[in-house]
């Protein structure tokens, strides 16, 4: 294992993210999934009865539901060959010094403690099944902001947790939401009280270390009236020869006039199935924004959605999908206009190279009565070579006449003329291609906080190494 390169774009994923620590856990369930395992997880966590029952019921739903027959190929996942619960430490730490040394080293390498000091309001760090570190600035705590691991959230704020948990994404929603509901562990619980503006982002970082494991974090965010929060998540994993499964559920409630932005920079290793359900409900004059960057994983199926429940609600989904060799990014978004005078915007940018497959799958639905709803969808695809593929599946279900819906889609290739132009100014071919790709995603990247914009461009550059002949 190499030591930390903190800068430099020449190191590949393997070196920078693909390393792993020795197996490190205080408890690991046996492989496979059944009632006993689910009950064991609940018992290990010392959960209330209702949650244990909820999990067991979700397991039944999971077993009953068929695998999706669209999107990517999930038939190869062997659900009995996965560790569903790997508990890395006996308890969550509040200082980095209390995090076991090798885990601390891992997060140091990923730059998390440094980022926390420089530009974050709070950080959660999950390692396999559990959050090993969690901290929020005192100032925010005093204002009543809750930022805990989901497990701690359930322990310390059971009533609030129970009131919202599973209300946005029920276990019956889809097979993977059911799976998560049965075996969930870790994730974040956030409550922002009325009128509180958390102007510096909160971040959670998800790391898989153990081979053949599944990570099933569960995130619940409640932004109360007139409040505002920006939550950022990042994720990486080692490169193992066998596949891992990451299946999260994220539920967000945005109360009247509140605003929530949820930014993901997903950079899983290429052996991870990333099958995630993310959904928000937005009430009167509230705004929900998903900024979703998908760079890693073997297969991602993820369509962050916004349900616009009351007049004036606004939803935005900005999605970047980058598929390289052996990768399939089935990304996109959904917006349901369930009330009049609601608006939404989806911008999707997908890039495929080296035989990768990236695309947009989306739905805009306007319910009967949702008059004066407005929506625009822009999907642009950039294909870097002949072997790669882009798909666009835009669905529209418009049940109301008095609405304004726009949809535009483009597919382009990196032009020889563009490359020649940049090269004629002294820029080498690889960097020229990376600049064209960075320019392509710029409309989304400029929405990111500066540090993440830099990170995103760096990751793109990493992906672009040696991509042009």
């Amino acid at each position, binding site marked *: 294992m190499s030591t930390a390169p903190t800068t430099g774009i020449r190191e590949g994923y393997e070196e920078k993210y693909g390393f792993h620590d020795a197996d490190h856990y205080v408890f690991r369930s046996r492989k496979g999934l059944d009632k006993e395992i689910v009950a064991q997880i609940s018992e290990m966590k010392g959960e209330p009865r209702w949650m244990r029952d909820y999990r067991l019921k979700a397991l039944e739903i999971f077993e009953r539901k068929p695998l999706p027959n669209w999107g990517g190929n999930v038939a190869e996942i062997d659900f009995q060959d996965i560790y569903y619960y790997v508990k890395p430490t006996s308890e969550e730490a509040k200082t980095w010094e209390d995090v076991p040394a090798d885990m601390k080293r891992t997060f140091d390498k990923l730059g998390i403690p440094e980022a926390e000091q420089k530009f974050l309001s709070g950080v959660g760090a999950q390692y396999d099944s559990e959050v090993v570190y969690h901290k929020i600035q005192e100032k925010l705590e005093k204002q009543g902001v809750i930022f805990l691991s989901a497990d701690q959230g359930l322990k310390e704020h059971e009533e609030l947790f129970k009131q919202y948990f599973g209300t946005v994404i029920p276990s019956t929603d889809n097979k993977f939401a059911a799976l998560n509901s049965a075996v969930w562990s870790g994730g974040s619980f956030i409550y922002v009280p009325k009128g509180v503006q958390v102007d510096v982002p909160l971040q959670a970082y998800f790391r898989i270390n153990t081979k053949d494991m599944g990570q099933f974090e569960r995130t619940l965010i409640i932004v109360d009236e007139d409040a505002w929060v920006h939550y950022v998540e990042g994720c990486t994993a080692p490169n193992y020869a066998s596949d891992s499964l990451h299946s999260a559920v994220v539920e967000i409630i945005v109360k009247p006039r509140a605003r929530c932005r949820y930014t993901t920079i997903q950079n899983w290793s290429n052996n991870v199935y990333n099958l995630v359900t993310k959904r928000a409900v937005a009430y009167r004059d509230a705004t929900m924004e998903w900024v979703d960057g998908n760079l890693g994983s073997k297969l991602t199926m993820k369509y962050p959605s916004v349900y616009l429940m009351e007049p004036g609600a606004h939803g935005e989904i900005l999605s970047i999908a980058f598929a390289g060799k052996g990768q399939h990014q089935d990304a996109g978004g959904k917006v349901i206009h369930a009330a009049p005078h609601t608006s939404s915007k989806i911008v999707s940018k997908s890039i495929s190279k080296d035989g990768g497959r990236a695309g947009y799958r989306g739905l805009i639905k306007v319910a009967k009565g949702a008059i004066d709803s407005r929506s625009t969808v822009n999907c642009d695809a950039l294909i870097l070579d002949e072997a790669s593929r882009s798909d666009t599946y835009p669905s529209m279900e418009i049940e109301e006449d008095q609405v304004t819906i726009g949809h535009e889609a483009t597919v382009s290739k990196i032009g020889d003329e563009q490359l020649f132009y940049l*090269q004629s100014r002294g820029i080498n071919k690889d960097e020229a291609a990376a*600049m064209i790709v960075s320019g392509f995603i710029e409309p989304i990247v400029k929405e990111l906080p500066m540090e993440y914009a*830099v990170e995103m461009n760096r990751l793109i550059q990493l992906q672009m190494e040696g991509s042009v002949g």
Partner: protein
Amino acid sequence: MSHMPELVIRDLHVAVEGKEILKGLSLEVKKGEIHALMGPNGSGKSTLANTIMGHPRYEVTSGDIQFKGESVLEMEADERSRKGLFLAFQYPVAIPGLSVANFLRTALNARLGVAETNGSGAVPRKKGIAPKEFRALLREKMALLKMDESFAGRYLNEGFSGGEKKRAEILQMAVLRPEISVMDETDSGLDIDALRIVAEGVNALAGSDMGVLLITHYQRILNYIKPQFVHVMIDGRIVHSGGSELALELESKGYDWVRDKEEVQS
């Protein structure tokens, strides 16, 4: 003081998709000189410009292009550029999302021999131009071309008017300071004001440090930029060379005059 010309083109034959366009062209350009290359449409002027810069679509079937004593035929365009060649494009392409400033700083750093840094967090081999210094340089060059400062933040050639595109080409030339600059139909599509600004820019840059090969269809730009040498190109060859007076003669008599003259001679 006489010295070896920086750009030496010898008996150049170039084919595009198997069709021969340049049929034995020879030309020399030194720093400090301005050469005008004139000729009718389809004579191969743009082929010459693109071949000098190394566009992969143009195949050199025989002959040579030497720059500062070294053949450039095996070099990619970026290497030629870093050695000091420049092409002002007739039709500059748009690069959406890439700002003029970001692009130019990357290009300048590439020329200065700096590893790709460009916000990527890489450790540069050498220090590139400092952001502050670069901004000052860019501001100075934009003022020279009477460009608004907001121009630096716009995406390269995206939504630019014809005049803005050409000015942006000259701006790049001003920042990168090539030794030999090939300007392909820089005057086309410009109104008279834009033409004057572009020409003033070229005049300000073309001194003892830079040689220019000005490719044009019309005599018009030569009212503003005074070449010492004028060459007439027809059907893939230079058929006639002379001083600046040749341009005026061409204007009044047309290319047929040279064509006829050539036929008489041969």
